[in-house]
């Protein structure tokens, strides 16, 4: 049974995990870069990653209880993500692979979020709602790949919430802060509800919500409530469209925003009304983490996917639907 060590460094998280193809997670150690102010500066995040890398790797190996030699392959998230950050993980992975003479396995970060959610929830063929700081994608498996049924046409849901929270002084991370305020909101203020076919657009919503705040005629609680209601309803509507279109009967929520109880609740209600099953990825596997890269790497490695070190360039714009998912029928 192949055992794979996986390295994640696509954005603010540097993580190392150890997992088997059967889904045993032996280690999952992560270190998250927190900017002092503002958003992520790629160069600073990369600097953080290089600093913590040796310690994270050491802790992950200790936690797994296995030696470096007994690991079958090294998996790394080559993309999509921020170039400087990706390079830290890729460099470490190449080094380990060549030092130990182990095969190197390329993993797509988005695919990893999907596979860890399937493992964590036990849902076999779900419509996947993948929401994070940098991604908002509705996808499902068709014809050998994860096809993108809907996505944001501009900014990601996490990005919308983080930026709004920062601009109105609620701090980071945006989702729990905004949701906390939203829980006390009572009045729905109309905001742009922008569903275009199977895609959503959030940039107009962000602008409108910030304008409302600056006008000062509404309570922040009500603005937060309206923002959350509108943004989440748009996403759930698109997920429902994907269910109706594909005829599938499972929905899974994954990615950093999967920790949102409000979004999960809305998706659960939608699924229930359609007679579909719904589940969220386990909270500890929701955000970026090394275990998901290790597990997906193990699936890929078992299916014969490896990459020569000299070809293992980082792929900052690596699209989810470019990956051939050889381990699924």
């Amino acid at each position, binding site marked *: 049974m192949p055992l794979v060590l996986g390295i994640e460094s696509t954005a603010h998280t540097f993580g190392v995990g150890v997992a088997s193809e059967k889904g045993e997670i032996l280690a999952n150690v992560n270190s998250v870069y927190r900017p002092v102010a503002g958003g992520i500066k790629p160069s600073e995040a990369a600097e953080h990653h290089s600093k913590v890398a040796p310690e994270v790797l050491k802790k992950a190996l200790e936690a797994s209880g296995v030696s470096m030699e007994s690991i079958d392959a090294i998996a790394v998230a080559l993309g999509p993500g921020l*170039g400087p950050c990706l390079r830290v993980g890729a460099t470490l992975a190449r080094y380990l692979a060549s030092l130990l003479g182990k095969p190197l396995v390329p993993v797509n970060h988005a695919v990893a979020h999907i596979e860890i959610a399937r493992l964590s929830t036990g849902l076999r063929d779900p419509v996947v709602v993948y929401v994070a700081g940098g991604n908002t994608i509705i996808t499902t498996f068709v014809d050998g790949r994860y096809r993108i049924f809907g996505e944001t*046409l501009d900014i990601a849901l996490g990005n919308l919430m983080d930026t709004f929270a920062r601009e109105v002084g609620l701090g980071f991370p945006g989702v729990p802060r905004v949701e906390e305020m939203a829980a006390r909101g009572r009045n729905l203020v109309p905001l742009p*509800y922008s569903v275009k*076919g*199977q895609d959503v657009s959030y940039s107009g919503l962000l602008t409108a919500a910030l304008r409302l705040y600056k006008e000062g005629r509404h309570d922040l609680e009500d603005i937060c409530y309206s923002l959350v209601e509108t943004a989440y309803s748009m996403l759930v509507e698109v997920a*429902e469209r994907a269910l*109706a279109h594909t005829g599938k009967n499972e929905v899974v929520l994954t990615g950093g925003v999967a920790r949102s109880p409000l979004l999960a609740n809305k998706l659960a209600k*939608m699924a229930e*009304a359609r007679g579909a099953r719904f589940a969220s990825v386990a909270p500890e596997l929701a955000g970026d983490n090394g275990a998901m890269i290790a597990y997906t790497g193990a699936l890929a490695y078992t299916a014969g996917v490896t990459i020569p070190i000299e070809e293992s360039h980082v792929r900052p*714009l690596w699209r989810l639907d470019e990956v051939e998912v050889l381990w699924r029928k």
Partner: protein
Amino acid sequence: MAEVGSYNESIAYLKSLVGFEALRVIGVGAEAILVEGYLCRLHVVAKYRVPKVYRAEQLDNLLRKTRTVLEAKLLGRAAMAGVNVPHVVYVDAEEGLLVLTYVEGERMKELLQDYREDLRRLAREVGYMVGLLHNEGIIHGDLTTSNIIVLRGRPYIIDFGLGFLSRRIEDAGVDLHLFKRALESTHPSLVEEVFSSFAEGYRLARGSVAEEVLRKVEEIRMRGRYVAQRRRKLFW
């Protein structure tokens, strides 16, 4: 499989309409349930926008009402422009109810999957119809092969539920972009064949504006995240 309570409720409501006779539930779409039946001896489909429990009531009511009214308006205009669409028979905006004439035939989705039609000719005709819509400033908003019904070789465009009025090249471009995306996700192997014929028909209906819109489609595609072609522009 779904919303049995809503079925019964909506069928009961439909039956309360004088002269409506429900035959069967055709389908439970993402936002509406469709019930086939007869209204004053017309073969009709009632589209009932079911309240969504996941949305705040205020938001839900507003969306259902405005979408119902707009859909009726767009269908009327499309018919007058010579596009094959179902005709509006009855509207109750507050309830989110729209009754339309029933379009017999098969979905383009299944025809493409079974390769049973002359795909190029059909795609050309669909492109022509969409071109006529855009000439009238009608943006469909959800062009997929599930929303095109083929009857005796002729396409009918249905479900204007996400449509709107606009003369912007950008909006026409997004409309076509979504159609292409729907082809990619549902019929990956046929995208080029179907879309190039579609574009031919579209050009025929729209003349010189068509090129502008088709260029826009490429531009919109490049705006998306992680597009392979966009990598060429990266130097680092």
